[in-house]
């Protein structure tokens, strides 16, 4: 799958031609998918750290799945670094604020708003943060995995490694929480440098939280169908299902709050973001709400649907695709307009409609192909990491609790062992 994706990237680059839109389409796809899948890894790590620090025992039986998901961080991070360095060197036009002259009062294209943000939006900070964040996250991901793996060979009954893991997760949480916000501002929000939203980091996090839970559930179902993880009970799925439902609603709450505050406040430079979305991206704008809010609300609200295999697998795929579209819209919208402005300026100004463009207003085949390529890499890194440790952490002090996990009431007709 990864090879297929790589091939598509190559074909896409070769056939892109001279058109700035076609060329940037491929670059934005790489940024989009690497941020999306890296985000899933990151949030999986974040959940892992939060559960560990909160003395949670229920997830211990499948904690190796969450650890293995973090293995994609260096890979996705490498792609983001390539895009970032490429942007700084002028290989792509994703980041409009990198254009020369915007912060030079003497220049013709001097931009007062971007000039006032240059303390944050400048290339050295951007590159240093991108590389620094990826390195720090990779360090923590590797640390969690190695400490947790050393648990397997520890003396039974000893909590030494567990305490060690707890210290590392406690160190990660504040660092991860603050760096991820800066990362998402740099990588995605700065694509539209005139627009800003104080809720943006939360909004993107909410999106990725549902995705991380969906990926964990799908992995567990897949591994169970292959005869592993017989110990995972319906109550585990039920609790994960509750998370899936809750974070879908949480995402909607943030989406709506961001929309409503900007809509209500009526500040031109902010409102134009949503005005443009409604005007040029109506399918994504409304479709995303159906996929990420309406369907989870209707399907996951019922108690028993939260652990019914069919409903959950269907919902997980819908949610993953819906949030993939969410990130697609976040990234493509900015690039679409900034490139459009640049094209207009080159033509000598004037106003005309940009119109419909595959890869911008809607994902086309290249988008899907590159997504499949990244998915292949993601799955490969996941199984590769999963195979390097015991599936069940035998010496974890909370393992017994997890093996007998009692969640909320299941439907009366069902036993926890399915």
């Amino acid at each position, binding site marked *: 799958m990864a090879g297929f994706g790589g091939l598509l990237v190559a074909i896409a680059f070769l056939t892109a031609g001279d058109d700035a839109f076609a060329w940037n389409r491929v670059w934005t796809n790489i940024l989009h998918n690497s941020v999306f899948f890296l985000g899933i890894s990151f949030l999986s790590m974040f959940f892992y750290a939060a559960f560990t620090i909160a003395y949670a025992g229920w997830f211990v039986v499948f904690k190796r799945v969450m650890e293995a998901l973090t293995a994609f961080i260096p890979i996705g991070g490498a792609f983001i670094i390539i895009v970032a360095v490429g942007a700084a060197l002028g290989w792509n036009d994703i980041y409009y604020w990198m254009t020369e002259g915007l912060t030079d009062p003497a220049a013709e294209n001097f931009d007062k708003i971007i000039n006032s943000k240059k303390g944050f939006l400048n290339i050295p900070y951007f590159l240093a943060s991108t590389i620094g964040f990826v390195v720090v996250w990779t360090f923590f991901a590797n640390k969690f995995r190695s400490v947790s793996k050393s648990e397997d060979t520890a003396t039974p009954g000893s909590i030494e490694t567990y305490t060690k893991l707890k210290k590392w997760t406690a160190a990660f949480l504040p660092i991860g929480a603050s760096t991820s916000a800066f990362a998402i501002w740099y990588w995605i929000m700065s694509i539209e440098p005139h627009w800003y939203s104080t809720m943006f980091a939360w909004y993107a996090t909410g999106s990725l939280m549902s995705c991380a839970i969906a990926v964990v559930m799908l992995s567990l179902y897949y591994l169970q169908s292959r005869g592993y993880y017989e110990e995972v009970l319906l109550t585990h799925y039920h609790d994960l299902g509750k998370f899936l439902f809750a974070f879908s609603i949480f995402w909607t709450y943030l989406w709506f709050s961001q*929309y409503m505050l900007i809509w*209500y406040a009526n500040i031109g430079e902010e409102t134009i973001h949503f005005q443009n979305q409604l005007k040029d991206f109506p399918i994504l704008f409304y479709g995303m709400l159906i996929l990420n809010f309406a369907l989870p609300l209707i399907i996951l609200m019922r108690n028993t649907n939260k652990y019914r295999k069919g409903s959950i697998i269907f919902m997980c795929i819908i949610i993953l695709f819906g949030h993939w579209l969410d990130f697609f819209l976040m990234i493509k919208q900015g690039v679409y307009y900034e490139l459009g402005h640049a094209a207009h300026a080159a033509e000598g100004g004037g106003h005309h409609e940009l119109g419909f463009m595959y890869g911008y207003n809607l994902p086309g085949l290249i988008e899907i192909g590159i997504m499949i390529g990244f998915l292949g890499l993601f799955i490969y890194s996941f199984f590769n990491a999963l195979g390097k440790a015991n599936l069940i952490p035998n010496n974890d002090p909370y393992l017994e609790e997890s093996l007998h996990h009692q969640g909320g009431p299941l439907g*009366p007709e069902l036993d926890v062992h399915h």
Partner: protein
Amino acid sequence: MATDTQNVLYGLYDDEQELIKAVKEAREADLDIMDVYTPFPVHGLDPVLGLSESRLHQAGFVYGALGTMTAFGVMTWVFTRDWPIIFGGKPYFSAPSFIPITFELTVLFASIGMVVTFYIINGLGPGVTNKYIDPRVTDDKFCIAFDVSDSSDDEQNNLKSFFSNSGASEVNLKTL
């Protein structure tokens, strides 16, 4: 409850696991349990007792939907028909600004409706004096109660032997 008073034979258990075991045995022996009293919610007791899922949340959904419609309907009527005012250059019918209040009223209707329904169904409420089996079931005892108003002596002895076999720490007869 055909008569005003009931004779109740009840056994007290010290532990919730013993209680669940005893309830299972009673159900297997086809004994007609009147009720079970516990000081706290016991996990897994409902399926053992054969109770069906509570329908309270369905009532809650109805109340919630009622709240949604009330809030959205009233605001729409007020701001488009009854007293249209322009706020901040927005149209009269500006749905996004109605959402927060719609949400609040949904929660309010659902919660109050469910509490009131719960009270009515269970015969609770201000000024109601409730009969109780034994005050210790609110502290540390778990109780299984049988209605023996119409039972013969044989049947009562059968129940008593069930209690002693299943490990009840105390068996009493009480008229409510």
